[in-house]
């Protein structure tokens, strides 16, 4: 049996075949589909956690309880989960534990392009790197065996091109004969007090030496000898590009990128005339090979930034090839908030009020784009509130009133809540807007602790934001309808001028939620061409449903696409000439 699977789907399948009991994640492109796919395997208890640290801790508990567990996240998620990860390296596992990390070279959907391979080295744990979907599944299965054999968490690193690439995968049956999870106590191994940790650390170092030696005979690290004039050490999707561009070159394809199989690398290097490393982002393999005293070419010819492509590798080797950037200049097509998006009115008001907006990660980061142009900072998940606190600590009294933090429901629960605790505790007089659209929207509508449903689509408790903020000590909490521009602007103005911390919660759902009873499309709107004066006021919200027709009338006129309009009413409120109304 074979199927075409994405890398993410293949990892999910591998987890099923490996007998995984618990899978946990916080959504993040390009890793999200791993958990979204894994729910089809009813044997696996799958859940969204509020953040990656909690997700890893749940996986750790499942492992300590004796079950195999998987945790998945995007590259920046590992920053959040790093604290438990580094100590987990010391305790080791009971049931096998796999941390899947999906990197995003080229930053297709990310705020940085950090190279997660450094985490495997930093935390002193093995990392596997598959080169297609077939390997995603096979390496996932192997990771659990290695995890239990070497008593270590294992990382599996994917990249966007692997996670979202599809290729043919052979399916197999799940493994049998795994021990049933049950409580077993081993405090000297699992309680990391200094006395215990001092005993564990040397074992971690020994483990790496053993793994490096074992890596020399693992089938996933393999020499492919062809013409020996050029030898290339590579891994992941870069291996595929190398085979495409330099089909005659010899390759050392690494399936385990940490620890490196040092003796195998020496052996391969001795067989080829000229040695290269082809890897995206950091010179991770290259520097270690150089430290072994082996001459190798890498980042002298490849960029440290962005992803590689067959064309970029050709260029580095001085081979002829096409150039994707050679096209003519055309209007760009950046992503945009959806028609009817409840964030649009908030950013319109923030722009009008000339607020200094500390932003966060989500669909609403698009509030940065013109014509809304109302975002001044964006660092990482949850950073908006702490950043706002810091800004008001240094600027003068008048400027303080301009500072507004915006944060989505899911991002607030991820790591923003700590920022709000600090803001209230230390009495920083900024305004926080929690954009509650009842879903984790940017990654494709995942449930979260404020949506009322679990990953398995089971009804559950739903966080009450006003009550939560009250419990944190916020004295001024306002709930508004963000589709009402007058109310939105007025409440923002009132809270911004207040010399105390305050929270505004917007209460309208994402227009893409298809769960019954959450979002309902209203009657669509239309422009009365006789009334439209061509003043362009309605264009200031950048709604994709509103089109400017320059050829109509004297100055041009606006037109609303009835297929795109959701009836949110925001444009009607902007029209001073009553030209916009509900379609008859």
């Amino acid at each position: 049996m074979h199927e075409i699977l994405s890398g993410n789907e293949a990892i999910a399948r591998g987890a099923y075949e490996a007998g995984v009991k618990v899978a946990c994640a916080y959504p993040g492109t390009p890793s999200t589909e791993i958990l979204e796919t894994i729910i089809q395997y009813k044997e696996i208890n799958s859940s969204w956690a509020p953040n990656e640290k909690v997700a890893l801790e749940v996986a750790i508990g499942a492992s300590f309880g004796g079950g195999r567990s998987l945790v998945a996240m995007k590259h920046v998620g590992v920053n959040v989960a790093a604290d438990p990860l580094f100590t987990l390296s010391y305790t080791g596992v009971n049931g096998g534990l796999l941390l899947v990390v999906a990197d995003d070279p080229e930053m297709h959907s990310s705020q940085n392009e950090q190279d997660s391979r450094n985490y495997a080295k930093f935390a002193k744990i093995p990392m596997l790197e598959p080169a297609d979907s077939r390997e995603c599944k096979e390496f996932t299965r192997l990771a659990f065996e290695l995890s239990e054999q070497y008593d270590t968490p294992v990382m599996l690193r994917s990249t966007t091109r692997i996670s979202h690439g599809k290729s043919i995968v052979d399916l197999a049956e799940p493994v049998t004969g795994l021990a049933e999870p049950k409580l077993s106590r081993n405090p000297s191994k699992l309680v990391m007090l200094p006395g215990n940790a001092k005993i564990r650390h040397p074992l971690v170092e020994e483990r790496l030496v053993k793994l490096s030696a074992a890596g020399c005979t693992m089938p996933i690290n393999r020499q492919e000898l062809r013409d020996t004039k050029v030898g290339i050490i590579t891994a992941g999707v870069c291996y595929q590009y190398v085979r495409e561009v330099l089909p005659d070159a010899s390759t050392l394809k690494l399936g385990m990128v940490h620890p490196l199989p040092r003796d195998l690398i020496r052996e391969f290097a001795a067989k080829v005339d000229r040695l290269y490393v082809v890897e995206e982002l950091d010179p991770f393999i290259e520097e270690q090979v150089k430290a072994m005293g082996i001459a190798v070419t890498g980042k002298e010819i490849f960029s440290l930034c962005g992803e590689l492509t067959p064309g970029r590798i050709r260029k580095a080797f001085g081979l002829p090839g096409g150039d994707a950037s050679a096209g003519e200049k055309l209007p760009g097509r950046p992503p945009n908030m959806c028609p009817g998006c409840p964030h649009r009115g908030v950013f319109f008001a923030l722009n009008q009020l000339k607020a200094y907006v500390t932003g966060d990660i989500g669909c609403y980061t698009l509030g940065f784009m013109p014509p809304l142009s109302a975002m001044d900072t964006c660092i990482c998940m949850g950073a908006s509130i702490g950043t706002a606190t810091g800004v008001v600590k240094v600027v003068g009294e008048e400027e303080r009133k301009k500072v507004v933090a915006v944060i989505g429901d899911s991002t607030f629960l991820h790591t923003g809540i700590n920022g709000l605790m600090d803001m209230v505790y230390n009495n920083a007089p900024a305004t926080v807007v929690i954009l509650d659209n009842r879903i984790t929207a940017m990654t494709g509508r995942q449930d979260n602790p404020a949506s009322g449903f679990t990953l398995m689509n089971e009804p559950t408790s739903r966080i009450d934001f006003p009550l939560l903020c009250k419990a944190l000590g916020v004295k001024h909490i306002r709930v508004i309808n963000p589709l009402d521009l007058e109310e939105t602007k007025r409440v923002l103005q009132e809270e911004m001028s207040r010399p105390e911390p305050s929270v505004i919660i917007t209460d309208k759902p994402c227009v893409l939620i298809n769960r019954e009873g959450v979002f309902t499309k209203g009657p669509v709107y239309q422009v009365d061409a006789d009334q439209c004066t061509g003043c362009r006021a309605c264009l200031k919200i950048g709604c994709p449903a509103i089109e400017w027709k320059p050829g109509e009338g004297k100055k041009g006129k606006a037109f609303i696409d009835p297929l795109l309009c959701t009836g949110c009413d925001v444009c009607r409120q902007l029209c001073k000439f009553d030209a916009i109304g509900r379609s008859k």
Partner: protein
Amino acid sequence: MSDQITNILLVGVGGQGILLASEILSETFMLAGFDVKKSEIHGMSQRGGSVVSHVRYGKEVFSPIVPEGEGDILFGFELMETCRALPLLKKGGRVVVNDLRIQPPSVLMGQESYPEGLVDRIRSRFPDFLLVDGQKLALEAGNPRAANTVLLGAVSKRLDIDEKFWLTALEKLVPKKALEINRKAFMLGRNL
């Protein structure tokens, strides 16, 4: 089977159904016994941004993305995005494009205009060119939303793959209630 790899690029605007079309292509090639790889970007691009999907098939496919300038067929869902992707196509490559213009934000807001004469510009560089009125034929099939399937039919005609594999893939991937209309739309495109 020859070692030749066929490279297909699907381009358009997020939300147009490009992912489903590339799924159907990949499934068809697998059913026909080929190795297949495909690649695309999810996430940000789904919010109305430009989308490029790569599908490659042959005896053994390595790279999941089409090497720059080696595309055999450019399957365009929208005219400007098709024009943008032309550098990915090889000299003498084929273009099948939907006769559809979707205005980007800067045009909607009246800051730029949608480029004129795109059809002629594409045709002059790639004479193996087919302009399809996807919307009209989809209406004829019974649903204006089946325009992609009309185009898929037109692309299928340019590939040497038995019709039965296409129809099996459609059956597997298109929701049951929409299948009949999509079959009809596919055949309308295929017979162009």
